[in-house]
């Protein structure tokens, strides 16, 4: 990681994603698709309603009013830990979310793509980098529908890279060591 540099990435994403390393700062532009729990389940059943090649999935349930994005920060990605594999199998190259994901997703990303972290709670900032382009599965409701959003340089950090480096799990393993030492509890 070179401190201070920001890598510009555009969707659809190709092999340039493989050069990114955990901790790199990125500004992402182009189309992304929101999906939370219900949308993942629907896509598994009925198919992906957009071209998944090089696609980026954003874990987000936005606030939309009058066809405009009012607020659109990330939701907790870990809820999608067991729901995401089919997306990579069909060509998706990146996820955006908050809080990190489990080791299954880390392995699914290996050699294929990355997990971008966007700052949780920063929905007004996110909306100021976005234009609404469309919607799939509107019957799932505002929070769970698949919204098609065009990004203009959304500031992200690479949380998990395609080589298996994971900022979140490194922090978490360290936290566990400290907990076991300080609270003198039996840790596995």
């Amino acid at each position, binding site marked *: 990681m070179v*401190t201070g540099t920001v890598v510009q990435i555009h969707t659809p994403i190709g092999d340039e994603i493989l050069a990114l390393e955990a*901790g790199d*700062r990125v500004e992402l532009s182009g189309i992304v698709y929101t999906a939370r729990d219900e949308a993942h389940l629907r896509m598994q059943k009925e198919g992906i309603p957009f071209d998944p090649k090089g696609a980026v999935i954003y874990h*987000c*349930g*936005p*606030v939309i*009013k009058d066809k405009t994005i*009012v*607020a*659109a*920060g990330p*939701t*907790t990605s*870990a809820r999608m830990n067991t729901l995401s594999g089919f997306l990579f199998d069909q060509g998706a190259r990146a996820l955006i979310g*908050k*809080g*990190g994901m489990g080791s299954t997703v880390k392995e699914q990303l290996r050699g294929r793509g990355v997990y971008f*972290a*966007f*700052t*949780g*709670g*920063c*929905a*007004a*900032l996110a*909306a*100021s980098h976005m234009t609404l382009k469309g919607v799939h599965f509107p019957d799932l*409701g*505002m*929070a769970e529908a698949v919204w098609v959003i065009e990004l203009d340089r959304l*500031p992200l*950090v690479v*949380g998990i890279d395609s080589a298996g480096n994971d*900022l*979140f799990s*490194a*922090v*978490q393993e*360290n*936290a*566990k060591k*400290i*907990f076991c030492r*300080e*609270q003198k*509890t039996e840790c596995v």
Partner: protein
Amino acid sequence: MQCREPEDLRVALADATCRAMRDAVITLPPDVKRAIEKATAAETSAVAWGEYGNIAQNILAAERLRVPLCQDTGIPVVYLTLPPSVSCSQALFEAVADGIRRATEEIPLRPNVVDPLTRHNSGDNTGAGMPAIHVRPGDRFTVTVLPKGAGAENVSRVVMLLPSQKEKIEEVVVETMLIAGGRPCPPVVLGVGIGGTFDGVTALAKEALLQPIDQMTAFEKQLCDAVNRLGIGPMGLGGSTTALAVKVKTAACHTASLPVAVNVQCWANRHATVEVKW
């Protein structure tokens, strides 16, 4: 003295609820902003600085654009204080629900309230037992809203310790944050309830979040320092502040019990109080 009709009260309380919700979801309380600024100044990790940079820009963007800070505008938790001149009635509950429906439409809020089993969304942030309304006596007629996001609420915990396990309270608090990791949008505020009953202790933990977070007792500071030594940092990406504050609220309990609850709150510790004038 002017004769006041029950209908006036309903309108006034609905107005106040809607206004409190608007304040809460757009503007952070000053003590919370100060705590975030302090955490930013103390941070040494480059990745964490990036997160604080986004948070600072987001707080400004929400205020400038008059839009919610976070798209998870939460589940509506409401506290009413009633002076002796206002009696507790069903009309008060209906007025608060009116205010939440209006806030959902006007601000807007994301419709988050669903049936727990069918998952049917009411579309207006009300439902059976929602908004959650807590009534208590007071000197002034006020409505306080605490819109609570799910990322942090989902990692909250209640533990029934034994009376001999007082020293384990810190372990419960720190372990809650260890399990939560980056999921609740740290740096968090932890509301800790101690005592009371199984159900009551969780209410204490949530009420603790309403206290000013830029002052802590020695015990609260001890818990906060222990959480911060985990190094989870903003968004779980590592850093020196994992909890902006720990706030404790206690109640008397059974001699054979020691209930402990930890209500985790994201960095956007949103709440607002409005006086009801009628």
